[in-house]
């Protein structure tokens, strides 16, 4: 087992509110890890920190790269940390800080290999399904401006590859028939799947799904769990998942992290978590064990 993501001592404060308090967990390579907890526990906040939308107050978030072995990618650094005095006699650190200050942000985290979906679906409503997927491949297609204007062979081949890749994911999520529909006009369940397909088009190593089964009927939820398992087993993807549907979570996840009031109260295998007294207390609202 090799870890892909390590979150250590993650604390997030909004003004006076402490949304996360020293959260720590690891996500193993090619596994499905679920993040559960009652409403307002801070699950989405963890996602936002991991994917770079919030700058964590303290802590480290590391993405490991077992393939190249070149070491870890510090996801927090990419958001542009504030300068420290000691930077000024270390030009390398200084220039890195400055670079990320200017050009850093969540998009860098995505390019490092973390993709996500949102709890409240965020699609490009006025674009077609296919265009949604092409936008996601922007960072990879990215020909020069001139190449696109002149439609060079290279540019066309890149475009073509992007369309093919999008087509494959559409087939995987059974959306092929909708490729030219406006995303905003899709039924709810389709939109959820499209958002996942779009995240996958960025070629992530870690896929973060924020309540993918919310609002789906039991059949759709069943199909979804198959899809998520296939992502792990066939493509070796690592999935981090927030979900309230305990049936789904217990079925598919390899590892569970339980949050309550911004703190990790338990983690482990699904069977062990089901027996955990603190978890039961948090969910059933009885007093502290």
């Amino acid at each position, binding site marked *: 087992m090799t870890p892909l993501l390590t979150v250590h001592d993650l604390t997030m404060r*909004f003004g006076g509110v402490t949304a996360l308090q020293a959260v720590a967990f690891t996500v193993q390579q090619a596994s499905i890890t679920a993040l559960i907890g009652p409403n307002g526990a801070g699950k*989405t906040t963890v996602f*936002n920190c991991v994917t770079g*939308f*919030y700058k964590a107050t303290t802590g480290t978030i590391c993405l490991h790269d077992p393939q190249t072995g070149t070491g870890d990618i510090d996801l927090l650094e990419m958001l542009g940390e504030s300068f420290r005095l000691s930077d000024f006699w270390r030009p390398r650190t200084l220039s890195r800080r400055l670079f990320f200050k200017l050009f850093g942000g969540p998009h860098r985290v995505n390019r490092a290999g973390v993709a996500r979906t*949102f709890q409240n679906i965020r699609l490009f409503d006025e674009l077609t399904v296919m265009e949604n997927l092409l936008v996601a491949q922007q960072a990879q297609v990215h020909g020069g401006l001139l190449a696109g204007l002149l439609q060079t062979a290279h540019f066309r081949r890149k475009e073509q590859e992007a369309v093919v890749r999008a087509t494959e994911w559409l087939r995987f999520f059974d959306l092929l028939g909708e490729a030219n529909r406006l995303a905003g006009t899709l039924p709810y369940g389709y939109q959820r799947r499209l958002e996942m397909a779009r995240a996958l088009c960025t070629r992530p190593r870690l896929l973060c799904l924020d309540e993918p089964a919310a609002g789906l009927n039991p059949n759709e939820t069943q199909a979804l769990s198959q899809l998520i398992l296939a992502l792990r087993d066939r493509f070796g993807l690592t999935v981090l998942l927030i979900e309230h549907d305990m049936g789904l979570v217990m079925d598919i996840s390899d590892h569970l992290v339980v949050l309550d009031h911004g703190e990790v109260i338990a983690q482990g295998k699904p069977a062990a978590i089901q027996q955990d007294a603190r978890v039961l207390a948090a969910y059933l609202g009885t007093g502290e064990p």
Partner: protein
Amino acid sequence: MDITIFGQQCVNGLVLGSTYGLIAVGYTMVYGIIGMINFAHGEIYMISAYLTAIFLALFTTVGIHSLPVVLLGVLVLTMLFTALYGWSVERIAYRPLRHSNRLAPLISAIGISLILQNYIRISQGARNQGVPPVLEGVFRLPPDSLDHRFVQITYLQSLIVVVALVSMAILTWIIQHTALGRACRATQQDRIMANLLGVNTDRIISTVFVMGAAMAAVAGFLVTLNYGSFDFYIGFLMGIKAFTAAVLGGIGSLPGAMLGGVVLGLAESFFAGFVNSDYKDVFAFSLLILFLIFRPSGFLGVPEVEKV
């Protein structure tokens, strides 16, 4: 630096700032409740200047000459009719677009301001208009100064500051202590929830536009009496200035609007007095841009957190 010149600029700035503040209230309240800028607000102010002149002339024609009656009557009539214009703007440019994309209401409001400007230009003529001087007279500080070393405050200037303060106080009281104000604040917090709880949010939004327009009418009335002359184009500049005041104070905050107005008025009149009067508008606009970039929440506003 001569202390009297300094004092004079203070007075001018304060007077200017009070009118900015009065108009800024309209921007701030509308922004607070629907999260949008009312682009036509400057033109509402312009309309109120015309109404003031028209009602003044009307009172003279009818033959009412008692000054307090005329002033109060003109003020009330101007406020009423301007409020009606404010209500219509909301009804035409904002309400039908409540559920459309963000740009649509802005563009329709720009359309409305073009309409209002040209409607006035066509109906009242493009030339400069004016009102006869009323309430002439000045206070001097110190009162017994013999040479030119004194600060001069006209009766109208003091009236402006007093009326501005009083109307702000009344508005604040309405927002803080009446059922209507409570409904306004509820709608501001969460429009959908307020609606579910039985607040007629459409009516509340209308009311906010009406209150904003009425405050702009107070400003229009005071400024028109003070300067005596205006044209159909004054709303544009005044609109941006007042918006600047609203941003300075922290858009969405009532006391912020007044504070921002006074700060802007003072800054502008010092700039005009001591630096360069040609560039005082450039200065005000630069202030607006700098604030929007570096401190969009202004002095009293709460920083907006982007929720993901």
